[in-house]
C-alpha cells in the first residue's frame, strides 16, 4: 500500500509539472508573439524634399529617401500651397518606388499651378516641405 501512495504521488506530481510546463510554454509563446508584434510595427519613412521649382506650368522637384524603408509612390501624396493632396504615382510613371538613399528628379505636369509658393509631401507618416525657388 505504501508503494501505491508513492506511485500516486509521483503521478500527481508529474501531472502538475506537466501543467506548469504547458503554462510556461504558452507564456513563452505569448511573449514571442508580443515581441513579433513590436518588430512588425514599421518605422515611418524619412522622405525629404530637397527643392522645388516651377517652369511653364511644370513643377520640378528633387526627392530623396533618407530612411531605411522603401517608399511607394502609390502611398506618397503631394500638396501644393495647402490644397488637395495629389498622389505621386498619378504624375510619375518612370518608377514606382524610391529606394533608401535614392534621390529622384520628378516633374509634375497638369497640376494647374503657375505660381506656387510651397510644396509638401507626405508618405506613410513621413513628411517634408519646401518653398519654391
Amino acid at each position, binding site marked *: *500500500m505504501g508503494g501505491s501512495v508513492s506511485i500516486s504521488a509521483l503521478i500527481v506530481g508529474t501531472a502538475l509539472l506537466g*501543467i506548469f510546463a504547458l503554462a510556461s510554454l504558452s507564456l513563452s509563446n505569448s511573449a514571442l*508573439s508580443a515581441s513579433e508584434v513590436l518588430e512588425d510595427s514599421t518605422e515611418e519613412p524619412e522622405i525629404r524634399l530637397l527643392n522645388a521649382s516651377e517652369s511653364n506650368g511644370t513643377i520640378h522637384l528633387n526627392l530623396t529617401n533618407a530612411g531605411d524603408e522603401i517608399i511607394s509612390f502609390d502611398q506618397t501624396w503631394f*500638396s501644393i500651397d495647402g490644397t488637395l493632396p495629389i498622389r505621386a504615382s498619378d504624375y510619375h510613371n518612370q518608377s514606382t518606388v524610391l529606394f533608401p538613399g535614392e534621390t529622384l528628379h520628378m516633374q509634375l505636369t497638369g497640376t494647374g499651378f503657375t505660381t506656387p509658393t510651397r510644396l*509638401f509631401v507626405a508618405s506613410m507618416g513621413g513628411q517634408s516641405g519646401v518653398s519654391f525657388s
Partner: protein
Amino acid sequence: MADGGASELIMLISGLLVAGIVTTLLVASWGGLANSVDTAQNQAEANSKTKAALASDPMQVSWDQPSCNLSLHIQNTGTLELFDGEIGIIANGTASTVNQTRLLGNSSVWTSGEVLELQVCPLGITMSAGQEITVTVIVRSEHYQGISGQYSFSEVIRLV
C-alpha cells in the same frame, strides 16, 4: 496490519482527491489567464496595425469660420483598413463634428496608403487665419481577430 492498510488507503484517496481539486483549480485559473493574455495580445496586435497621419500640409490648413469648416486630410499609414465613419477629432481642445468625408484618388475603402478628406467643425470656438492649433485625430480599424484597433495622434497645424 489491516488497520494500517485501511489508513494508508484513506490517505491515498484523500491525497488523490486533494491533488485532483488542486489540478482542477490550477487548470481553470490558467485557462482564464490564458484567455486574458490572448485578448490583450490581440488588442495590442490590432492597435499596432492601426495607424494614421496627416497628409495635408500642416503649415497651410484651410479654415473657414463662417461655415465652420476645417479641411483635414488623413492618410491610413497602418496595415488594417480604417472606418471612415468612426473618426474622432479634437481641434484646439474642442470636440469637433465631422460633417463630411471623402476618399481621394477614386478609392472606395480606406486601405493602407489612401487619404481621407474630412470637413470638420469645431463647435463653438472662434479661430483665425495664422493661428496655430493642436489637432488630435482618433481612428478605428476593421476587426482583426475579432478586435478593432485604435490609434490617435496629435499635430500642430497653422490655419490659413
